[in-house]
């Protein structure tokens, strides 16, 4: 079996396409991130604390990175977390997911797995039912593989 250059690119298309575009637009992505935060908070500057973002320091592969958020809140009918926005600053598009909670959630906690194009900051912003907003940020180092990359 012969193996030409085109096929090499084809085989790694997933990772390569994702990674190749990221550095070029990273500046724009940061602006996008700021815009997404503002849109979510209604223009307010979110405060640090109350929300905790849990991410690995080093992700073995950027395609599947576990992330978790938890927000301190009694989660009662008149005092609860409405939603949490997850952003990845260095991805081609920073939007990752938005969790919506209710008093029936019992606790404002959620976990999922996400894609990160490269080493970057992951951001979580919480919005409470009284309109106040909180933020946490964690850097995740995304490693590249062995000789195959």
């Amino acid at each position, binding site marked *: 079996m012969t193996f030409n250059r*085109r*096929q090499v690119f*084809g085989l790694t*298309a*997933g990772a390569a*396409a*994702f990674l190749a*575009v990221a550095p070029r637009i990273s500046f724009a992505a940061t602006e996008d991130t700021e815009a997404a935060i503002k849109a979510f908070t209604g223009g307010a500057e979110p405060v640090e604390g109350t929300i905790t973002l849990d991410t690995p320091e080093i992700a073995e592969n950027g*395609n*599947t*990175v576990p992330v*978790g958020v938890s927000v301190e809140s009694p*989660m009662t009918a008149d005092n609860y977390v409405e939603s949490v926005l997850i952003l*990845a600053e260095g*991805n*081609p*598009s920073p*939007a*990752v*997911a*938005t*969790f*919506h*909670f*209710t*008093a*029936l*959630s*019992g*606790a404002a*906690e*959620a*976990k*999922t*797995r*996400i*894609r*990160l194009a490269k080493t970057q900051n992951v951001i979580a912003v919480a919005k409470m039912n009284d309109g106040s907003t909180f933020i946490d940020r964690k850097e995740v180092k995304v490693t590249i593989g062995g000789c195959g990359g």
Partner: protein
Amino acid sequence: MATPKPRVKVPKKASKGEVITIKTLISHPMESGQRKDKEGNLIPRQIINTFKCEFDGQLVFECDMDPAVSANPYMEFNAKVENSGTFKFTWVDDDGSIYESENKITVE
């Protein structure tokens, strides 16, 4: 692609007012719309864009997903249960398909 099949883990029993943990997983490639095929053409985006958990018709938890959620999306969250009832889980695909699962819980 075989029809996406959800997996859900909900305790069968709980005590009144308990906050339980729910885990869900569904098979889905979550095609991001950023990858290219062998000919260099962009593969169109097709993801599950919404996940919802309801208990006896009332919303418990919802998630809007973007293409940065990994393939075979996993969700872990909580629910406070006051009485026996049925959890309904719904996943909405970009192509309009809806995948569902229902789990009963007994509260003692």
